[in-house]
C-alpha cells in the first residue's frame, strides 16, 4: 500500500504490499516486507559533536542520487561545542524526500532519530503521535537524564507510549563491531552516527555504495578510520535486516521531475557557483573581499577553491575592509563581490554609499540571520529588507534581489551581477540561513543559455562639447549608467569619490540645483532597471486572494497554497525576486485581488513597502522564530483570510 508519509496528510493511494526491488548496494538481498511511501521526513538529532549534519548530508546525497525530490533543514547551535549532552548543544538535520516535487523540508518529522536525552527532549514535541522514534539507549543514563531535567527515564515511564519506539544501543553495538579494529573505545564510539545512518539506509532501501565511497574518500589519509566508519555503517544496516525489532522497510520511489541532469545543492554553494559563472559570463576576474561571519562564510570557503576561474578571495581584517577591497577591485575593472550577514551590512553601509556615489558595480550578498545585533547567528530570518533598502545616509538607492530557494541562488547571483555591471551600481542580494544551508535537487543549467554579462569599459573621450575631455558622469541615455573607465586607460584619467559631482563632468560640486538633480538621477537609474514582470500562479484562474512573498518563504507558501487548493479553494501565489525596483506590473497584480496576504519572517517589512508604495492594505502575517514557516500554519492563515473574504 502506498501511504503518504508514515500516516501523513497527503492524498493516499491504493496498492498491494510490494517486495523490495532487489539488491541494494553491495549488501545481501533483504528479506523483509517493504511499504511504499510517497514522502518521508526524517530528523536526525544529537549532540553537536555527534556528527548529525554529516549524517543528514549523507542520507540526503543518497536520496538525491536515487532520484527523490528533497529539501533539507539543518538546525544547529551557534556554539561550536556546547557542553556535551545539554539542550543548547543539540544539533539536528531534517530531510524531506518524496516521489513528487516538494517545496519544504517538512513541518514535522515522521521519523526522529535521537542520539541522547537532550536530543529527545528538544525534538519530541515535533514528532506526531504514531511517529517512529529511534533512540540511542546508551546515552540514557541517570546522569544524562538529570542534565536535561528528566526526573524519570522516558524509556521506562510510559511517556513515549504514543510513538513507535525503537530502542537501540548504538554505541555498544558500534563498539562491539569495531572491537577487532584496534581503535580506542572512544574512537570506535564516534562512528555511532554511521551506525544510525546504516540503520536508516536499510529502513528506506537506500543504496550503500555511495556512502561507503564517500567515507573512504573523506578519510583517505586515515584508512583505519574510513574502514571503521564503513563497518559501523554496515553494522547499522545489518542490525535492521537481522533483528526482529524492525519488521518492515519503506520505499520512496524516484520523483517525476523535469528531465535532465540533476545534482543536490545548498544555497551557499549555488551562490558561490553563481558568482563564478558571473565572472565567466562577464569575462571579468572576480574579486571577493570579505570577513568570516555565520552563515555566509561557506561562500568564502567555496570561492577560495576556484582560483582557476580567475577568482581572488581576500579575507580582510574586518567587514569594512572586505567591501572596501571589493570596491577597489571593481574600480580596477574586476567584478567586486562581498559576502556577509546582517551585522556585516551595518558595518559596510558607508562603503555601499560610496559605491552608490561613485557608481561602480559591486555585488553585496547578505545571508540573513536572526537579529538584531548578534541575534541568532545560526538561525534564519528575513529582517534585513528595510536595511537593504534604506540603511544608508542620504538618498542612496540600491537594487535588492532575493533568491527563493537554494538552487535559485545561482540564477539570482547572475541576475544581480547583470544589474551591477549594466547599471554600474552596488546590488544587494538577500539570501538567508534557511536556503543558505538547506539543499534541494538542481536541474543543471544549459551553459549556452546563461545570460551574456559582458559590458564594455570606456576607452575614449566623450565630452559632448568636443573638447576631447573625458566626463566620468556622462550617462548612457538608455540605462543612465556612467562610463566604467578603469585605470590604465590613456586619456581618461579622472578623479571620483564620495563628494557630490557635477552632472556630466563629474567635478566636485556643491551647487544646490546640481545636487537635487544628481539625487534624482541616481534614483531614476535604479527605478529604471529592467526587471521581469511578476508572474502569478493560480491554476484555477479565479482566485480572489493572493499570497505574495519574497525570499526563502517561497517553499512553505507554495506548500500551503497546494493544501488550500487540494481542499477545493482557489488561491493565487506570487513571489518577488526583485524587491528594488519592484516589477512594473506589481501594482496591477495587487489591484486584481480582493485580499493580499504577505507572510514574512520579520515584523512586516515588505508589507510596509507595499502599503507605502501601492496604498494596498495587505494582510501581513509574520513570524520571527528563527525557523522557516510551516506549511500547516500558513494554510491556517490562508484559510482564515479566505473565510473572511468569502463570508
Amino acid at each position: 500500500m502506498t501511504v503518504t508519509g508514515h500516516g501523513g496528510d497527503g492524498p493516499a493511494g491504493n496498492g498491494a504490499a510490494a517486495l523490495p526491488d532487489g539488491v541494494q548496494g553491495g549488501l545481501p538481498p533483504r528479506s523483509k516486507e517493504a511499504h511504499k511511501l510517497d514522502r518521508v521526513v526524517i530528523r536526525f538529532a544529537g549532540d553537536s559533536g555527534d556528527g548529525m549534519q554529516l549524517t543528514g548530508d549523507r542520507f540526503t546525497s543518497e536520496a538525491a542520487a536515487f532520484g527523490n525530490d528533497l529539501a533539507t533543514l539543518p538546525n544547529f547551535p551557534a556554539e561550536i561545542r556546547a557542553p556535551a549532552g545539554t539542550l543548547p548543544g543539540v544539533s539536528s538535520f531534517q530531510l524531506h524526500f518524496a516521489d513528487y516535487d516538494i517545496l519544504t523540508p517538512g513541518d514535522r518529522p515522521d521519523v526522529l532519530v535521537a542520539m541522547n536525552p537532550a536530543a529527545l527532549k528538544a525534538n519530541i514535541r515535533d514528532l506526531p503521535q504514531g511517529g517512529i522514534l529511534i533512540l540511542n539507549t546508551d546515552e540514557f543514563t541517570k546522569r544524562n537524564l538529570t542534565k536535561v531535567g528528566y526526573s524519570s527515564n522516558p524509556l521506562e515511564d510510559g511517556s513515549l507510549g504514543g510513538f513507535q519506539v525503537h530502542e537501540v544501543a548504538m554505541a555498544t553495538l558500534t563498539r562491539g563491531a569495531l572491537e577487532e579494529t584496534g581503535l580506542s573505545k572512544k574512537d570506535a564510539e564516534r562512528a555511532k552516527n554511521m551506525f544510525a545512518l546504516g540503520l536508516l539506509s536499510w529502513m528506506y532501501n537506500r543504496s550503500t555504495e555511495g556512502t561507503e565511497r564517500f567515507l573512504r574518500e573523506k578519510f583517505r589519509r586515515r584508512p583505519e578510520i574510513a574502514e571503521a566508519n564503513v563497518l559501523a555503517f554496515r553494522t547499522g544496516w545489518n542490525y535492521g535486516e537481522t533483528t526482529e525489532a524492525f519488521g518492515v522497510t519503506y520505499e520512496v520511489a524516484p520523483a517525476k521531475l523535469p528531465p535532465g541532469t540533476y545534482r543536490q545543492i545548498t544555497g551557499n554553494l549555488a551562490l558561490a557557483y553563481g558568482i563564478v559563472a558571473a565572472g565567466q559570463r562577464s569575462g571579468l576576474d572576480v574579486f571577493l573581499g570579505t570577513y568570516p561571519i555565520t552563515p555566509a562564510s561557506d561562500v568564502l570557503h567555496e570561492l577560495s577553491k576556484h582560483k582557476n576561474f580567475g577568482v581572488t578571495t581576500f579575507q580582510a581584517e574586518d567587514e569594512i575592509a572586505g567591501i572596501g577591497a571589493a570596491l577597489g577591485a571593481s574600480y580596477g575593472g574586476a567584478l567586486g563581490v562581498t559576502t556577509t550577514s546582517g551585522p556585516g551590512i551595518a558595518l559596510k553601509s558607508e562603503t555601499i554609499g560610496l559605491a552608490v556615489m561613485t557608481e561602480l558595480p559591486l555585488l553585496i550578498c547578505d545571508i540573513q540571520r536572526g537579529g538584531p545585533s548578534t541575534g541568532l547567528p545560526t538561525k534564519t530570518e528575513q529582517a534585513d529588507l528595510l536595511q537593504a533598502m534604506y540603511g544608508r545616509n542620504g538618498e542612496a538607492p540600491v537594487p535588492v534581489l532575493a533568491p527563493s530557494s537554494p538552487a535559485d541562488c545561482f540564477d539570482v547571483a547572475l541576475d544581480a551581477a547583470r544589474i551591477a555591471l549594466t547599471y554600474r551600481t552596488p546590488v544587494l542580494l538577500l539570501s538567508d540561513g534557511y536556503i543558505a544551508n538547506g539543499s534541494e535537487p538542481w536541474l543543471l543549467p544549459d551553459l549556452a543559455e546563461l545570460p551574456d554579462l559582458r559590458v564594455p569599459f570606456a576607452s575614449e573621450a566623450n565630452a559632448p562639447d568636443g573638447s576631447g575631455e573625458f566626463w566620468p558622469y556622462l550617462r548612457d541615455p538608455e540605462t543612465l549608467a556612467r562610463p566604467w573607465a578603469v585605470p590604465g586607460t590613456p586619456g581618461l584619467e579622472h578623479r571620483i569619490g564620495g563628494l557630490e559631482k557635477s552632472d556630466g563632468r563629474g567635478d566636485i560640486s556643491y551647487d544646490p540645483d546640481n545636487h537635487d538633480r544628481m539625487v534624482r538621477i541616481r534614483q531614476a537609474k535604479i527605478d529604471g532597471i529592467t526587471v521581469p514582470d511578476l508572474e502569478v500562479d493560480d491554476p484555477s484562474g479565479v482566485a480572489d486572494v493572493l499570497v505574495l512573498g519574497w525570499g526563502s518563504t517561497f517553499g512553505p507558501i507554495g506548500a500551503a497554497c497546494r493544501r488550500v487548493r487540494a481542499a477545493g479553494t482557489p488561491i493565487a501565489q506570487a513571489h518577488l525576486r526583485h524587491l528594488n525596483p519592484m516589477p512594473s506590473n506589481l501594482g496591477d497584480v495587487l489591484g486584481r485581488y480582493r485580499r493580499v496576504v504577505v507572510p514574512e519572517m520579520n515584523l512586516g517589512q515588505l508589507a510596509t513597502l507595499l502599503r507605502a508604495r501601492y496604498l494596498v492594505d495587505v494582510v501581513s502575517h509574520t513570524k520571527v522564530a528563527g525557523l522557516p514557516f510551516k506549511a500547516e500554519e500558513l494554510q491556517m492563515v490562508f484559510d482564515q483570510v479566505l473565510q473572511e473574504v468569502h463570508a
Partner: protein
Amino acid sequence: MTTVDLGLPSIGGTAGVPTTDEKQTAKSFTSDQEVRWCPGCGDYAVLAAVRSFLPELRLKRENTVFVSGIGCSSRFPYYLNTYGVHSIHGRAPAIATGLATSRSDLSVWVVTGDGDALSIGGNHLIHTLRRNVNLKILLFNNRIYGLTKGQYSPTSEQGKVTKSTPVGSLDHPFNPVSLALGAEATFVARAMDSDRKQLTEVLRAAAEHRGSALVEIYQNCPIFNDGAFDVLKEPGERERRIVPLRDGEPIRFGPEGEFGVVQDGFELRVRRVSEVGEDAVVVHDASRTDPGYAFALSRLGGQDLEHTPTGIFRSVSRPTYDDLAREQVRQAQESRPADLAALLRGNDTWQVPG
C-alpha cells in the same frame, strides 16, 4: 598547517607598471582642479614635491592611481592628473588593497592623515602593513584635525588644548613610525614638508620598494596647529633635534656633529660623541631583518620632538600580499582549466529521463 613557498624573485616597486618615453613634467601631473587648501598649508609643499617627483618614475600617467580617505590631505588626488579615488574616512588602505591586488600594472599610492590613518583607519593601516601590499602610503601628520576645525588627533601631544579638549587632552599619542614598525612594515620613513630634498629622496626610495611603504610627513597646519614643527625648522634648534638617518653612515647630528646615537642595553640613546668615542656610534642599517633596531630608533623622539630621526628607518624585502595572491591565481589557472560545466556538475549527478 602547511605553507607554500612561492619563491618569488625580488623585484622593484614599480615592476609590471608600463613605462613611457614621453616627456613628463610636474605640469603633466597637474589636474585642472583649483587647489583648495588654506594659504600656507604644508600640503602645498608636499603636492609640489610629488608632482615634480612623479615624472622621475617614467610610468604611464594612466597607470598611476592615488587613493585617499577623508581629511584635508585626502583632497590630494583631485590635484593630480592621474586616476584617483577620494574615498571614505580611514578606508583608503582597504580600497587600495583591492585595487593593487587585482591590478599588477598599477602604481598605487595612498594619501592619508594622522586622524584618517591612525584613528578611524588604524585597523586597515596595520593590516595593510603586515600584509605588505605594494602600496605607497603618504601619512601627512599635522597632529590635529583640520577639516573638522581643530580637535586633537591621535598624534597630538598629551595635554593639548583644542576645541574638544579645553582643559587639555588626556590621550597618549601614537608615534606613527613606531606603530608601523610594530606592524612589521617593510619600509618606514619620515620626512618634513619643508625639506623638499629629503622628501623627494624618501619618495624615490618608497616608490622603488616592493611592498608597503609608509612615509610619515610632518606637515604644518597654519590654521589649527600652526608652528607644530617649528622647533624642527629653526636654525640652531633644527640641528640639535633632527637626527638624519643615512644608510651605512654613523648616526651623528648637532650643529657640530657632536651628538651620536649609541646602543645602551636594549635601547638606543643620544650621547656626546666626545664622551663615548666614535666607535660607539651606531652605523645606520635600514635593512636589518628584525624591526627591533628601527623601533629603537623611532623611540629616540618623544611627543616633545626633542630628538627626531628623519629619513628611512627600515627597508627590507619580504614577498608582497598582492604578488602572492596573483601567483596563487596564476598557478591555479595553469594547473586546472576553468571548466564551468564540470564545476557545476560536481561529483554526484543523476538523470531524470524525459
